[in-house]
């Protein structure tokens, strides 16, 4: 009797999970299906159709799609690079040194993450036009710091704090200089954490929409802004729209798979250690 009850419960629980999994994953499957459907079969077939690559060749070969991808890559990559160069030392200082206003500074950096993007964008639009930064790589890389810098500093700070300070003292006693300790000892130790934080920052930057929409233009057009071109037109080629969405989502999903173990820690800015 009891085992019977347990089995029913287990089937019920698996069933509930399956329903959620369908809700979460089927839309992606559907997007993939549509990306392989030709325009002629788009409206007449559901699951059974003749798969074709024509949508892919159309989007990837006959449009500026790769240019948009490249823009995304330059802007997101540049943003993460700057955040790593300036953020890792800052994270180290915030982890190891005790100085006045330390927590205030740390929270100030975190608060940038919660600043409404539009509030920054409206005045920045004015400044950028005056400085000539509007619609430039540098302009976007700079504003993307609001996305990548808080994440990097907070997550990497946590990884530094995990390392026992005794190791550093021992190395000091052995006569290592501070940069030898930093580059030869600490950096290798936090490398997995640093790499995953950088990749997550890259995903966030890659997915950013508000900043490039309002501060980018014809010259710099990341993929998130470019895909909207395929949206909402009456003559929409749904297959091409599906291809555009699929290809733009791929890098983020691949990177996310690489950093699974560190994902919780990164997403919660170090607050939850998964």
């Amino acid at each position, binding site marked *: 009797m009891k085992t019977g009850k347990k089995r029913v419960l287990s089937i019920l629980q*698996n069933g*509930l*999970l399956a329903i959620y999994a369908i*809700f*979460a*994953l089927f*839309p992606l499957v*559907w*997007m993939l299906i549509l990306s392989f459907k030709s325009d002629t079969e*788009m*409206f007449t077939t559901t699951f059974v159709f003749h798969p074709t690559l024509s949508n892919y060749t159309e989007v990837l070969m006959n449009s500026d799609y790769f240019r948009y991808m490249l823009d995304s890559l330059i802007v997101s990559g540049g943003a993460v690079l700057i955040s790593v160069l*300036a953020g890792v*030392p*800052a994270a180290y200082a*915030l982890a190891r040194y*005790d*100085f006045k206003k330390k927590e205030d*500074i740390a929270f100030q*950096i975190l608060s*940038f993450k*919660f*600043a*409404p993007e*539009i*509030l*920054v*964008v*409206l005045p920045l*639009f*004015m400044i950028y036009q005056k400085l000539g930064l509007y619609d430039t790589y540098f302009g976007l890389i*700079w504003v993307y*710091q*609001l996305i990548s*810098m808080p994440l990097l*500093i907070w997550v990497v700070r946590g990884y530094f*704090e995990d390392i*026992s300070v005794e190791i550093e003292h021992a190395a000091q006693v052995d006569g290592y200089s501070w940069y030898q300790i930093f580059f030869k000892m600490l950096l290798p130790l936090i490398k997995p954490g640093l790499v995953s934080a950088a990749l997550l920052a890259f995903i966030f930057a890659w*997915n*950013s*929409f*508000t900043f490039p929409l309002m501060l980018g233009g014809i010259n710099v057009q990341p993929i*998130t802004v470019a*895909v909207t071109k*395929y*949206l909402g037109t009456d003559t929409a080629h*749904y297959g091409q*729209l*599906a291809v*555009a*969405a699929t290809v733009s989502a791929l890098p*983020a*999903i691949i990177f*996310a798979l690489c950093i*699974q173990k560190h*994902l919780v820690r990164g*997403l*919660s800015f170090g*607050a*939850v250690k*998964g």
Partner: protein
Amino acid sequence: MAKKNATDKVSCNMNALPLKTRMRPYLIVAPALIITIGIMIPFAMAIYFSLTNYSFRMPTYKFVWFENWIKILKSEDFWRALWVTLRYAFWSTLVEMVLGMGVAMLLNKLNNAFSKILRVVLIFPLMIAPITATIVWQLMLNSSVGIVEKFLNVFGVYNFPWAASPDTAMLTVVMIDVWVNTAFVMLLVLAGLQSLPKSPFESAKIDGGSAWFNFKNLTLPMLKPSLYIALLFRLMAALQEYAIIFGLTKGGPGDTLMNLSLTAHLTGFKFQKFGYALPYILVLWVIVNITAKQIVKRQRAAQKQASGLES
């Protein structure tokens, strides 16, 4: 614990050190701070320009004090935008928290091959750009190529309007937000569940407490810190959501989904009334700030309580 030791040892005689050494941490933090603060100058500007009639169309502007603010606080647009913002944030966050927690507990309980695969693949929607998520769902909901319509037809529901009708537009955008972000809550709760200490549960077993009793008195209080973090991140983002609503309906149909972010953007860029756009977003900033502080305060209290339970 390690952290406390670390800071103690380095800081033991900070004031006795020469100025150069004392300044070092500030100098190390400075580049990161300057890069981000440079971008924060707009904040101060925003407050100033909200008191002017600045417009991209006019070469000059003048100081109008609180004219914009009074006009906006008296306008219906503002109160509607505020109401839309709060409703969107409330519903999407609520559903994500409940659903994310439920899925995490199921995954934790079952712990079979199926749930192990799901742990990996369920995060895919979270990694996709919100704007791309709206495309994914347009492909689902579209009345001519979408599959949801065919599915609903089986149940005798025809032409469900989704984003096209003012009655169901909010439901549609909240659903997309839930699709994207439930995995975030799920991940955090799952991590929290897996780091629960075993001993309190073992002693509870001996005492013979019911499952519900254990959940209420042990699991929930120890999960609370993670739950507050999830709530903080989700609520802050939902209050400011722009991409999903813009991507799906640009705030329509009519002005059904015009929240504070979208209204500020439209007023500032399309209507080019820059000074008049800023109060919308400054109000949002105040709301976000106050809410964040409240949640952080509670998170810390919960953290204290939870670490008390563990020992």
